[in-house]
């Protein structure tokens, strides 16, 4: 692993191409992962830490300490006293320009300090309450369920429908099969925004507005999926199907028992794509779903940005949670993507 990561073109020393490559890759890494890292770190900041200027990279918070006789932990400050010595004291309350402070070790001894003589003591602190309080703040579970339902069901139906279309287009010879295939492909050239209104009218007529199925049905037939699977199925030898036919298999059994299992790599690719598409989908759910109990996570994120107040700490935490499933799916299945795309493209 180390050897792979630290590989060079020159033997043992850096060639100029190595400098160039590493520079280019570092820049790419920064450009792509910078915002994500910033998002994740910020999601662990308290609300005040997010808005402070200049911003800090790591989530920092004022050190808190428990003071006997007080209910809540109190913030700790470094105080310069009148005699010039500095001490770390907890602030009990602040009135005007004077702050009343106490040493937690000696809670009876109150110290009054002008506020310009104190600076907060900051330490690395993860504001995990952003995540912990999320569920209570709003109906997170419902949104998560809506998103998961749409993603899973739409992906299953996508795989089923697209593979059936691809099977027919790759393995049956019928009049107009090229035309049908080209028609399906040509829909790739129509921007989704153009069909947004017609789609909406259809879904509305079918009474699917404010229903999760209204999000699922228009999305399940994808030309990309049909193309990807068809190209892959073309590489399956016809003799396998003929052998199955002689083995008394019905066409459905041939599809289900022979073609589908052998198309698994391409199906995995399409599954990943479909999960990403459906999970990240925003515009279409926004149009179809207007009741908040039907919102997907993406819509909830949007709704969380209020007109007047936005609770950024919760919004960022929720964004991170929203990113996790697709990232995991992609991380575990990405080797299928490269395999599947390679085999669908080359042959």
């Amino acid at each position, binding site marked *: 692993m180390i050897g792979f990561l630290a590989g060079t073109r020159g033997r043992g020393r850096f060639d100029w191409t190595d400098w160039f490559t590493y520079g280019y890759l570092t820049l790419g890494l920064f450009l792509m992962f910078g915002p994500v890292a910033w998002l994740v770190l910020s999601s662990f900041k308290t609300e005040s830490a997010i808005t402070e200027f200049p911003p800090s990279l790591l989530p920092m918070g004022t050190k808190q300490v428990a003071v006997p006789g007080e209910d809540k932990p109190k913030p700790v400050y470094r105080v310069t006293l009148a005699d010039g010595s500095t001490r770390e004291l907890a602030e009990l309350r602040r009135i005007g320009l004077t702050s009343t402070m106490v040493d937690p070790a000696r809670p009876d001894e109150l110290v009054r300090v002008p506020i310009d003589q104190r600076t907060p003591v900051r330490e690395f602190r993860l504001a995990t309450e952003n995540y912990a309080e999320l569920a209570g703040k709003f109906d997170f579970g419902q949104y998560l369920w809506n998103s998961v339902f749409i993603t899973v069901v739409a992906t299953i139906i996508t795989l089923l429908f697209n593979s059936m279309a691809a099977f027919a287009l790759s393995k049956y010879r019928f009049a107009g099969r090229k035309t049908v295939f080209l028609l399906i492909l040509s829909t790739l050239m129509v921007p989704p925004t153009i069909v947004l209104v017609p789609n909406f009218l259809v879904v509305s007529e079918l009474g699917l507005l404010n229903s999760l199925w209204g999000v699922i049905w228009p999305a399940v037939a994808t030309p990309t999926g049909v193309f990807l699977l068809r190209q892959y199925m073309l590489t399956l*030898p016809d*003799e*396998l199907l*003929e*052998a*199955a*036919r*002689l*083995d*008394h*298999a*019905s066409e459905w*059994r041939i599809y289900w*028992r*022979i073609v589908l*299992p*052998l198309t698994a790599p391409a199906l995995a690719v399409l599954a990943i794509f479909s999960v990403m598409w459906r999970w990240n989908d925003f515009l279409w759910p926004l149009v179809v779903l207007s009741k908040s109990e039907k919102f997907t996570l993406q819509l909830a994120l949007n709704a969380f940005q209020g007109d007047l107040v936005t609770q950024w700490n919760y919004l960022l935490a929720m964004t991170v949670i929203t990113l996790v499933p697709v990232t995991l799916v992609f991380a575990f299945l990405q080797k299928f993507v490269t395999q599947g795309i390679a085999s669908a493209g080359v042959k």
Partner: protein
Amino acid sequence: MATLNLRQLVKEFEATRVIHGVDLAVADGEFVVFVGPSGCGKSTLLRLICGLEAPTSGDIEIDGQRVNHVAAADRGLAMVFQSYALYPHMTVRQNMAFGLENVRTPREIIETKVREAARLLQLDTLLERRPTQLSGGQRQRVAIGRAIVREPRIFLFDEPLSNLDAELRVSMRTEITSLHERLAATMIYVTHDQVEAMTMADKIVVLRAGRIEQVGAPLDLYNRPANRFVAGFIGSPQMNFIPVVAGGHDGDGVAVTLPGGQALAGIAARTAPGAGTTLLLGVRPEHLALTANIADAQLSLKVLHLEQLGAHSLLHGLVADGGTRITVHAPGQTRVSAGETVGVTIAPRDAHLFAGDDAGLAI
């Protein structure tokens, strides 16, 4: 167990006619081999029989019933493909059981049949393997096993041995022949290898360009080829063809004049060719003999190169007059070396005469 009849079978792919009205009868339990050069339509014929292609016209009858419109699955045939076409994602057991599962055979019966076929083909220990974990010969046996468990009416083999190495091919040849004896099933076997055809067949069907050239038992084809094509195709090394001029004929046979001017009399013929017509004399290499005395010889041969095979030798060379290239099969090992001229004698009883035209019918 079934008979097969083809009547005036024609197959066209778009405008191209690839099978030109084939008539053929296959008896119950017969081992029939379709042989011919690549592109002769032998595989297409097999696909027509099993129902993977539909004939343009003509009839296919199995056990006397016309099956033109019966789907491949319902004809009760099983095919072994050249590429084996094993389902790569299934184990050997699943591969063999698939066909039976499709007709809803009870589980215990499937198990018994698979076990039986596996024992017959020595696949017992490999049942849980996948095809990619098997050698070429084992895959071949699984493909045959898959055909056996279905107890088909007719077995079809499409060049099943062409992907195997030479040694394995010979042993699989005997295995398939003994399988045929044990099962006593009707089998149709397609190959381009005339050695396979000669060694395995009860009946050989020689095809060329979508037409049947000759049908017969292996030795019939060898001894009495119907035309020049069959004569050249059956037998290895190939039959020699020497242009000759027909002379007179008597009760003993036809006499011809050889390129060197020598006469050869007593060649068996079905009809008497007109004197003076140009014919082709067909003699197999094994029916030519070397002679030390060139004066006695019917042909003089300038040897170009030799193949010393130990048990016998093959001499390739040119006939002195006319420059026809011929091969002589000499028993044992020969002392002749390349560049020498040797005398060759012909056994007239084993020679054949063919018309000099393109069809080259036997005379």
